[in-house]
């Protein structure tokens, strides 16, 4: 088993409640307690209904793949905010900066000298033979060494001071539009509430994102950089977010067919003729970016885009090849990256992880399926995973067959007792499990808007917070004061 520094994680059984702990209300939640106590009966029920209407009206939707067809629905929004005080956030922010610096240093290294492999700190084969490792990027260092310009690091909390990174989303993390819309909704539903409590603002995220993108303009950018957002189109599950962010940043939202390459420079077709594009915030996966370099059958990308990129005529954010850093089989090595590149001890711990591709880990996993969460090493979105304790014996047996067929495709982790937060559900206010996805922006500098997206498992006892699996979201408050 890897991740020896995180043994503590396995021992927990009951979840830590972020509001009620050790028979008292924790200090950051006193404002929530006072607010809830002062509310007239049925107020929350009314606000809950109002919130639902509000989200439908704005049109925040999310396509859920597993339900067949193009089913769009809103992600449930919970009206009770999650709260972190200034100290808790300061710690998280330091840990996030450290982790994302290490991840970017790893990506630059792995596509150049591969010192970390030479030093024997990570074995060669899991990297070099991994489909996420892109030979096309060899000997290429993006501007400022930034590979993951927008990283969404999923954090879970197990105790007052225990934060763990569940996974790093380095390629194309989504969800930031929900973070922004949730705050907007809270402001509209409860005017004055946020102002009372010195909650750190987050509405400048689009400006920070645009600044970040402009700061990584390519070496051959002729002047003021032009930034555009490249989307796969309206059938993508995150299309709402793409159009939302482009709008907020005041930049063009483009599809592959709107762009073309001439003389190794990227142009967008406009009504006033072609206009040079210097930075593409692309929400199209590597495989589909350029049929001359990646999948030949892709029509979502731009033929010749990769040549313009390697020649330094355009910046792609996030960089090509970033997915090797968030591959779940590489995750166990992130703490080692922090030590190797930064010479520091990791502030944020990893969850202990079993690599089913290793014989001894695999036999442990097979005999402890009822205690473990098993995930595809290359999957995302909570599809194709097994939550052992909640699965039936038959479900575990079916999954075990898949595991035996391709053990190397899976990792397993102990079932963590994620922290809970008060949540408005049918029976009233009850604790539900949460995680947190802060968004880390990396350009010339690193910037993190306080908080992030809190996801909540709305079903009682459920530990799966993914929106594709019936999870909801909450506004996340970072108090500007210490408690």
């Amino acid at each position: 088993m890897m991740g020896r520094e995180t043994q503590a994680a396995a021992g927990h059984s009951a979840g830590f409640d972020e509001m009620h702990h050790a028979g008292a209300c924790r200090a950051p939640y006193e404002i929530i307690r006072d607010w809830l106590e002062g509310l007239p009966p049925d107020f929350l029920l009314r606000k809950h209904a109002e919130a639902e209407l509000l989200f439908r009206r704005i049109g925040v939707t999310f396509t859920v793949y597993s339900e067949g067809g193009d089913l769009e629905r809103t992600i449930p929004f919970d009206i009770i905010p999650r709260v972190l005080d200034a100290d808790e956030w300061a710690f998280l922010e330091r840990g996030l900066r450290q982790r994302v610096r290490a991840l970017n240093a790893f990506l630059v290294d792995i596509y150049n000298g591969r010192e970390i492999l030479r030093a024997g700190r990570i074995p060669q084969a899991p990297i070099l033979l991994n489909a996420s490792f892109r030979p096309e990027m060899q000997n290429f260092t993006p501007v400022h060494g930034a590979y993951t310009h927008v990283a969404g690091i999923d954090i879970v909390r197990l105790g007052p001071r225990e934060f763990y990174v569940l996974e790093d989303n380095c390629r194309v993390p989504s969800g930031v539009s929900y973070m922004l819309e949730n705050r907007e909704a809270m402001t509209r539903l409860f005017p004055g509430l946020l102002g009372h409590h010195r909650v750190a603002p987050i509405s400048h995220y689009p400006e920070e994102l645009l600044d970040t993108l402009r700061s990584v303009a390519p070496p051959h950018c002729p002047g003021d950089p032009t930034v555009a957002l490249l989307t796969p189109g309206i059938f993508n599950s995150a299309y709402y977010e793409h159009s939302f962010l482009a709008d907020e940043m005041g930049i063009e939202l483009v599809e592959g067919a709107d762009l073309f390459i001439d003389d190794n420079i990227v142009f967008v077709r406009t009504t006033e003729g072609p206009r040079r594009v210097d930075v593409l915030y692309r929400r199209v996966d590597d495989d589909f970016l350029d049929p001359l370099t990646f999948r030949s059958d892709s029509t979502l990308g731009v033929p010749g885009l990769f040549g313009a990129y390697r020649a330094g005529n355009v910046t792609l954010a996030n960089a090509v090849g970033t997915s090797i850093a968030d591959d779940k089989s590489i995750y166990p090595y992130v703490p080692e990256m922090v030590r190797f590149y930064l010479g520091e001890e990791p502030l944020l711990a990893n969850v202990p992880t079993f690599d089913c591709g290793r014989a001894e880990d695999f036999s442990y996993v097979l005999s402890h399926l009822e205690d473990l969460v098993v995930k595809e090493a290359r999957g995302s979105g909570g599809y194709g995973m097994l939550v052992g304790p909640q699965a039936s014996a038959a479900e575990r047996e079916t999954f075990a067959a898949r595991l035996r067929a391709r053990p190397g495709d899976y990792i397993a982790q102990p079932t963590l007792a994620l922290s809970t937060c008060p949540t408005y559900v049918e029976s009233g206010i009850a604790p539900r499990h949460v995680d947190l996805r802060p968004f880390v922006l990396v350009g010339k500098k690193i910037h993190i808007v306080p908080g992030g997206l809190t996801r909540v498992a709305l079903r009682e006892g459920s530990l799966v917070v993914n929106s594709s699996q019936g999870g909801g979201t909450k506004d996340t408050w970072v108090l500007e004061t210490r408690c």
Partner: protein
Amino acid sequence: MRLRVHHETNYSYDSPVVATYQMLRLTPRAHDGQRVISWRVQTTHGHDLPSFIDGFGNIVHCHALNRRHKEAKILAIGEVETFAGDGIVRGAAEPMPPLFFLRNTALTMPDRAVETFAREVAGQLPPLAALHALMGTIRARIAYRTGVTDAATTAAEVLEKGCGVCQDHSHLFIAAARVLGIPARYVGGYFWPAADAEPYNAAHAWAEAFIDDLGWVSFDSTNGVCPTESHIRASVGLDYLGAAPVRGVRLGGASETLSVTVMVASIDQ
């Protein structure tokens, strides 16, 4: 030996094409076995093509033709001095470590038959002898025949068909070597068959396999030789798709007529 290469690719279309985009891996680089005296790549584009060096160390020219056209041309011309040797490639740009070349692609993915083929041919032989046996067996079993395979034919299909061209021989060799745990890769380039031999009017391809203590060794299964001075090495990759002389897309245009002329001549005399 001094070799002169003239490699011309002509496309013509029944109806006008709106745009053509191509990546060209047509430019040899120096290693101990070859020195590039002169080389140029030009297209209908008309002026110097932008280029970059890819992750494998290949020189890649980027060609974009953004106007209606019914014809397009790519021309690669140059002279290369080659040196006789032992078939080991030394002094080449080697950005990727050997282990990487154990990775398979859609074109080289072995099926059960390719696995059995590789193991039967190799038997208990040490790596170098096993690779020579593979080369000899492929040459004997896979007849050289044009028009039966295409750019998308996989190594497994080649073994099943029992015939193909240099690209197919190379894919089968690579797939089989990787089954044996030997890193192998695809090489694109040019071949001069000898003064009195029938001219070889096509771009050529062969394979390289990595052996500890030796390095990258070349195997030309089509000709049954370890390439030395009659071969000019122009590109490497995991398979044909990664090392292809031309990889492109076009927008519009109904049907395409492609004609490729390759002339390789020795100019020592």
